[in-house]
Every structure is written in C-alpha cells, then in structure tokens.
C-alpha cells in the first residue's frame, strides 16, 4: 500500500490521472459525435459495468480519489484545458455545441437552486420564473434602452434577486411542501402575466434581442483560426464557461466556509440553529435572493444567446427539470449539479434517435437512478475542514493514518 502510494504521488500518478480524465472526455465526446443510438447503449452498458466493478473493488475507487486529491491542481488544469478544447472537437456540429451551452446555463441556474434547495432546504419550484425575470429584464433593457449585454447580464441577475422579495413572506413562514406549493403558484402567476402583459410582448414574447457583442465584436461571428473554423457558438461557449466558473467557484466557496456550515445547520434543524445564535431568517432571505440571482443570470444569458424569448420558454416544466438536476445530481454538492445538468440536458437530446420512446426511456432512467442512488449521483459529503487548513492536517494525518481521507474542497 505504501509503495503504491509513493508511485501515485510521482509522475506515474499524474499520467494515470490525466488518463482517467481523458477517458471520460473521449466517452463524452463520442456520445455527441457518433450518430445513432448504439453508442449510447454501449456507454450505458460500460457505465453499469464500471459501477459494478467499483462496488466490488472499493479500494480502487478510493485510490483514484486519493490520486485526484494529491494532484488537485494538475487535475484542475487538465480538466479546464479539456473543457476549453471542446469546441475544437465538435466544430462540425454546432447543434451539440448549442446543447452544451444550454446545459451550462441550466448548470448556472441549478447552482443557484442548489444554494436554496440543497444547501438550505428551501424548496423553490419557481426557478423557471426567476429564469424568466432575468431573461425578460435583459431583453427589455437591451431592446428598450439599448443597454449592452455586459450590463444587462448582471442587471438580469439583480432583477431576479429583487423579485425574490415577492416571496420573502412565504419563504419565512412556510417550509417543505407548503413552500413548494407557494412557489408553484408564483411560477404560474409569472408565466400567465408574461402571456398577458403588452409590454413584455404577450404570447409573442420578445424578438430580435441583440446577441452578445463586446467592444464591437459580435458573438455571432465564426472564429477562423486558419487551421480550423469554429462555429459562432464557440464565442458563447467560452462566455458560458466563464460564467459557470465564476458561479461554480462562488458556490463551492460558500459550501466550504462557515456560511456552508450555517446553511447546513439551518437545513437540518432550524431550532437547533436558532439556539446557537444563528439568525435563521436573515440567512434564508439572503440565500434565497442570491440563488435567484444566479438563476436570473442564466436567464439573461439565454436572452442574448437565442435573441428570442417567449413565455413557453419559462414554463413550469423547466422548473421541474432544474429541481430534478439538483436532486439527481446530488444536493448541496457542486459536482453533483455539474453531473446532473450534463446528464439531464444532454441525455434527452441524445435520445432523439429513439424518437417516440424518448421520454419513456428518460423517465425510466430517472426512476432507476433514484432507486439505486436515492441521495443523488454525487451525494452530499461531510465538509472536510481539515483539508482547508492544510498544514495541521498533514501533521495529524501522519500521526493517525486512519483519519479522514476523502478530499472536500
């Protein structure tokens, strides 16, 4: 064991680690690029086999985890480079690039929802409504006053945050199922209002919202690099990666801080939290608003990505998808939300090859996953604060090797 650990700490470990990342990457790209359903079936089988294999050999899984923890920085650099290269590999199919951008927007929104639902236990089934608030705010500001996209983007986020105030009373007074009902009602109110108000364009929605452009550079132009021509969506893709990175890092930092501890305690037991001096109400309002800001940001992005928004884009089913992403991916776990959004946005697109049976299979997959992983694909993990305060941990780990081995941050 010691011998193996030493090898894993050296260059071999790095090679294995990058190999693991590369395998996942290739499987992901193959899923998008190989037409037909066979690749999906093959990868599904491979996944099932892998799950069974890792169940049989938990030590192997643990060792891979250790590997990633030991070379965290390299793992991150590798992952970022691979992600940034995605447009190069799928330059031939802008459709998939667009789907990935949409997955990224859902990811952004779901990180916000995860703060509410996952971290603090506030059920919000009106996420599509706040998505709409962000999208319409950006669209109206851009159309009416010609605000540039780099202002409307944060403006959409702020608007969604401000609109949260409409739900402050129920957020404080109700819990669980009751809060769910109130937010559902709010969701329907918003879509009905959007459908009927003149100044939001009614059922026609907003047309010709200017697409992103920064300092005269329109995001609608293809990138010609000489050796390869990237579709225009590549611009949006890189902006999406930036947004996701900002929101994701912020979420992860909130999780792995005192604030995360506070929110978890509020989620698990409000009375206990109060008796330890936590201002439960204040935190709930702050997190509810912040979560909606993230959702609104995604909405504003959507506006400038497609240039056309109408009420059906923000119907209740979108809220359900977002909640499913958080629950299936894993509550209060940023990585879970990443896995969840990729899976739930990309899988239905891939399932188009089976046409009529698409949603049947999709539903089946969800049910199976919930049976086998009721706490999500990447479940909540106890924070490892020993990890954050590095030096002492290493000292302790040396003296008692049986201490915590899983990496947190």
């Amino acid at each position, binding site marked *: 064991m010691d011998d193996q650990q030493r090898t894993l700490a050296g260059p071999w470990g790095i090679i294995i680690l990058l190999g693991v990342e590369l395998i996942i990457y290739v499987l992901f790209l193959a899923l998008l690029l190989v037409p037909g359903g066979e690749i999906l079936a093959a990868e599904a089988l491979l996944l099932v086999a892998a799950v069974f294999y890792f169940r049989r050999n938990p030590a192997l899984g643990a060792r891979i985890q250790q590997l990633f923890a030991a070379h965290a920085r390299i793992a991150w650099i590798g992952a970022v480079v691979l992600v940034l290269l995605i447009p190069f590999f799928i330059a031939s199919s802008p459709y998939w690039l667009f789907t990935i951008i949409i997955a990224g927007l859902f990811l952004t929104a779901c990180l916000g929802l995860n703060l509410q639902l996952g971290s603090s236990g506030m059920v919000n089934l009106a996420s599509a409504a706040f998505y709409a608030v962000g999208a319409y705010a950006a669209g109206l500001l851009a159309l009416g006053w010609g605000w540039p996209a780099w202002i409307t983007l944060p403006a959409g986020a702020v608007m969604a945050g401000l609109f949260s105030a409409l739900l402050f009373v129920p957020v404080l007074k109700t819990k669980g199922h009751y809060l769910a009902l109130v937010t559902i009602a709010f969701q329907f109110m918003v879509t009905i209002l959007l459908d009927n108000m003149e100044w939001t364009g009614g059922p026609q929605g907003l047309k010709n919202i200017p697409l992103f452009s920064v300092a005269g550079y329109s995001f609608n132009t293809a990138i010609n690099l000489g050796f390869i021509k990237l579709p225009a969506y590549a611009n949006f893709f890189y902006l999406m990666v930036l947004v996701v990175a900002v929101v994701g*890092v*912020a979420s992860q*930092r*909130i999780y792995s*801080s*005192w*604030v*995360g*501890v*506070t929110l*978890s*305690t509020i989620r*698990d*037991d409000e*009375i*206990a*939290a*109060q*008796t*330890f*001096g*936590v*201002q*439960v109400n204040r935190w709930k309002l*702050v997190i509810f608003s*912040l979560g909606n800001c993230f959702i609104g940001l995604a909405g504003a992005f959507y506006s400038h990505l497609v240039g056309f928004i109408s009420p059906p884009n923000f119907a209740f089913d979108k809220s359900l998808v977002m909640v499913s992403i958080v629950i299936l991916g894993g509550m209060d776990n940023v990585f879970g939300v990443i896995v969840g959004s990729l899976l739930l946005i990309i899988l239905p697109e891939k399932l188009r090859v089976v046409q009529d049976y698409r949603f049947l299979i999709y539903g089946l997959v969800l049910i199976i996953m919930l049976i086998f992983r009721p706490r999500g694909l990447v479940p*909540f993990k*106890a*924070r*490892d*604060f*020993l990890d*954050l*305060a*590095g030096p*002492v941990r290493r000292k302790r780990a040396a003296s*008692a090797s*049986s*201490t*915590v081995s899983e990496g947190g941050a």
Partner: protein
Amino acid sequence: MDNSRVFWTEDLSIAFGGLLAVDRVNLDISRGEILGLIGPNGSGKTTIFNLVTGIYTPSTGDFFFEGESLLGKPAYQIARKGIARTFQISRLCLDLSVLDNVFIGMHYRQKYWLVDAVFRRRLLAREVSQARDRAFSLLGVFNEELVDLAGKPVGTLPQIDRRRVEICRAMAMEPKLLLLDEPSAGMTPEEMTELMQDIKKVQEESEGISIIIVEHDMTVIRSISDRVVALNYGRKIAEGTFEEVSDNAEVREAYLGKRGHRL
C-alpha cells in the same frame, strides 16, 4: 449569595390551551453552581428550557440573565447572551461532520460573511485552523478518540459520543449558563457515569459556568448537583439539597404514589 446569581426566573408560566405546563416557577442559579431539575414526565422541565432559550414565549412571568430581562427576545439573541443548551432528543446534524457540528456553536463569534466566504479564503483558512484547534481541545476534554473522528459524520458515532459532541457544541459557545436536557437518556449506567465525570471536567475547565441539568436518574442528580429543584404539574414543589428534596413527602408522592419507599 444573591449578588452572584446569574440567572433567575420570576413567576415563569406558560399555558398550552387550558393546560398550565409551567405554573409560576421561580428558579435561580449562582455562578458556578450545578442545579438539578427533577420531576416526573410532563412536569414541565423541558418546557422551562424551551421558555428560557426563546423557543416558546412565556404567557406570564419574566426571566433574567445577568440582571437583564430576556423576555420576548428571539432565540438567537438569547443564545448570544451566553445561554447554551443540549436537547433531550439529540438535535445534531447527523450528515455533518463532528467538526461542523461543533463549529456551529462558534457561529456568532465569527465575524464572517457571505462576501468573505467567497473572496477572503486566507482569512477563512486562518479562522478555520483556530476554530479547529479549539474544537479539538473541547473534544479532547471528553475523549481523545473523538478528535480522530472529527471529520466523520456524526451519524456514524455511537450514542454516547453524540451526546458528547452535543455538549461540546454547546460549550463551543463559551456560555455562562449551560442547560443540559437529560444528557444520559438512552445510555448504559457505565456510560452515564463516564458522561457525568466528563461534565464535571468541563465545568472545572471553564470556571464560573453554571449548569442546570434535567435528569431522571437520581444517582446522576445526587452525584452532580449542588442543589435540586423538584417540579410536578408545572409547579415547583421542593427545593434544597438532594437529601432534603428526596425526603420531601410531596416529591416522593409525585414519583412513587402515596406510600413510596425511600428513593
């Protein structure tokens, strides 16, 4: 004596519907004292804890901490004054690590906010390492092994360790008054004795802390408390040393019926 009293109640009462769960109870506790609160089930012991920690609001009466009335203050403010408690049925967050659970006790001393969480990671790392050292020393008072389990979810620990974590969480608040609600519930006699020694140790380490302990087990009360108050049907029926209270006819009747033998 009177000057040193940290906490007292004045005719504290609460009615749930027609039921007077706590009926004009006057309690007081001095600095460094351990007060045992006994009484049969439903006599209002836990309700008193809920009243003085702000979970319930008294119907009438008042309660004072260090000379200041805390009546009507929200629970979080009362906590910040220096009153910590444990619960009869454990209210730990089972999914969270031992360390996280203890950290919440330090919550209100942390001058740390959302923006800091995102942008000031060095500050956080420094605070975490200080808080962790404190948590380790608290856990260490109880059980050195708990320190090694600090990263494990509380749900994986045995009952006695959970109790200890709960008391550590309360102690992390550096309270002046600690309310222990049946700390020995669900424990074997050996575990109980161990826990009581732990509590004594905690009290010695933080001089001046006052403890009110609700307990059903009379050996525990006898061994640990300086003074005992007995309740029945929400009223105070006796007060004094353990011997005085246990010899009290009304107390024996409450526990054992009319012709009880010695406790």
